[in-house]
Structures are given as C-alpha cells and as structure tokens.
C-alpha cells in the first residue's frame, strides 16, 4: 500500500500501477481546473475576436517563445530522468532533475520580467489604464493574468515536488526498482508543460 510511491506500509501491498493511475486521475482534475479558464477564454474570443488579437499583440512573443522552449526542454530532461533511474544511473538521474529545476526557475524569472514590464505599462487586473482600453482587451488581460498566474503556481509546486524527489533519490529512498514517486512527479511536470502548450498559442499567437 503506497501513497504515490511513498514508503509502503507493508511490502506485499505495493501497487505501482494503482499509484500511477491515481496520479492520472489527479491530473484529470487539474485539466478540468484549467478548462474552466479555457471556457472563459473561448467565450471571450468568440465575443471579441478583434480585441483579443489586438491585446495579444501587446504581449511579448519572445518571452512566450523562449518560455515554451524552456518548458519543452524541462519536460525532456524529466522524461530522461525516468529512463535513467530505470537503468539505475542514479547520478545521471539526479543531474537531470537538477536541470529540470533549473529550467523551472528560468521560466519563473522570465515570467517575472515579462510581468513587470507589463505592469509597468499599467496593464494589470483592475487597472484604470486597462479599463480605458475597452471590454475586450480588459477581458483578455484578466484571463491572461489569472491563467498564467495559476500556471506559474503549478510550476512552483512541480519544481518543489521534483526537488523533494531528488532529495529522496540522493538518500536512496527512491531507487531503480521503486521509482513511482519520480514517475508521478514527472507526470505532474508534463501536465504543467501540456497546459503551457495550449496557453502559448492562445495568448501569444492570436492574430
């Protein structure tokens, strides 16, 4: 019996597939969580197509693209980490985890600069400057901030999770034949990536 691969109570009740299945179920709940915001987005887009395109132009496409590449690469490194631990290459696994965490931090720093620039322009939820630009643009930026903010929050959680797992790997508690915890953290990280894969074109690339 294990919680997401955490220490088992008794060895004969271990159920890795069950733990992974539970994690997938949890990921479904995350998808629905974001889908609520995507519903708001799609309704906004249907109502204000021009304004959404106009607002999208105000976002910095370079930040967006770089962050996409960063996240895709971090997804790769954490996927590689699983193969590495399956092949019992502990050192490599750890290094790949660190790269992933590093990329997560790069992503957040990027986001920080991007947001400070926008907030500096007076574009943030509830700002008067935003209100002057009309309902469509306001709706776009409200959603942009809330969606990207929620996504950033997930990056934070995912990064922490991987850091915890890395410690456990270093301590020898997550090993080449008991690595469900790493697998589940990786699943979570891929979800964060998946959300961004949709977020990026919807917010940065509308024309």
């Amino acid at each position, binding site marked *: 019996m294990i919680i997401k691969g955490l220490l088992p109570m008794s060895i004969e009740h271990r159920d890795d597939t069950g733990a992974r299945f539970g994690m*997938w179920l949890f990921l479904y709940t995350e998808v629905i969580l974001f889908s609520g915001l995507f519903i708001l987005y799609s309704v906004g887009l249907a109502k204000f197509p021009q304004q959404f395109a106009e607002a999208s132009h105000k976002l910095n496409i370079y930040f967006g693209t770089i962050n996409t590449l960063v996240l895709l690469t971090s997804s790769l490194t954490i996927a590689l980490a699983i193969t590495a631990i*399956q092949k019992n290459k502990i050192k490599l696994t750890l290094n790949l985890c660190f790269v992933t965490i590093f990329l997560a931090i790069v992503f957040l720093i990027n986001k920080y600069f991007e947001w400070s620039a926008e907030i500096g322009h007076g574009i943030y939820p509830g700002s008067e400057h935003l209100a002057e630009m009309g309902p469509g643009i306001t709706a776009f930026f409200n959603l942009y901030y809330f969606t990207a903010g929620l996504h950033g929050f997930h990056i934070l959680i995912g990064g922490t999770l991987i850091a915890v797992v890395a410690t456990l790997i270093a301590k020898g508690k997550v090993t080449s034949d008991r690595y469900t915890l790493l697998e589940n953290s990786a699943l979570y990280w891929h979800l964060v990536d998946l959300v961004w894969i949709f977020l990026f074109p919807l917010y940065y690339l509308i024309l």
Partner: protein
Amino acid sequence: MTEHKHEPVPFRTFILIWFALLVLTVVTVAVSRVHLGAWNIWVALTIASIKSSLVVFIFMHLRQESKLFKIGLLTLLIIVAIFIGLTFTDVLYR
C-alpha cells in the same frame, strides 16, 4: 491486480520527440505570422494538439499503459468537450 512494468524508453526516442516538439513550436509561431483569418486559431490548436499528444503518449508513457488509462483520458476529453460545447449553445445564440 496486474502490475505493468515499463520497459525503459531509450534516451534517443525522447530526444527525437523533443526535437519534433521544438520544430512544431517554430512552425506554430511561423504560421501565426501568416494571416489565415479565423483559421489561425484552428491551425494553432491543431499543432498544440499534436504537440500535446506527443507529450502524453511518449513523455508520459501513456503508450505503455493499459487500456484503462487510455479510456480514462478519452472520458476526460469528452467531458471537457461537452463542457465547452454546451456552454456555447448559450453564448453563440444569445
């Protein structure tokens, strides 16, 4: 209660997929600079769907999992489609 042990996916596969993802990202940015009207959004979503399937099936090992996982994912997608679709019966016809 059957246990599914995954065979390790070779490093090479992951790197190839990663490369494909990078290419698709470049494509989606490039396409977005071409004016296609309402089609822009559909092209962008299609590319995003391809990218996410790559992530789901390869990076997330869904290819190796049992049918249960796949049916679950299908259910999820149907439900999300229903939520969005039925909301639009209101929004589009108001």
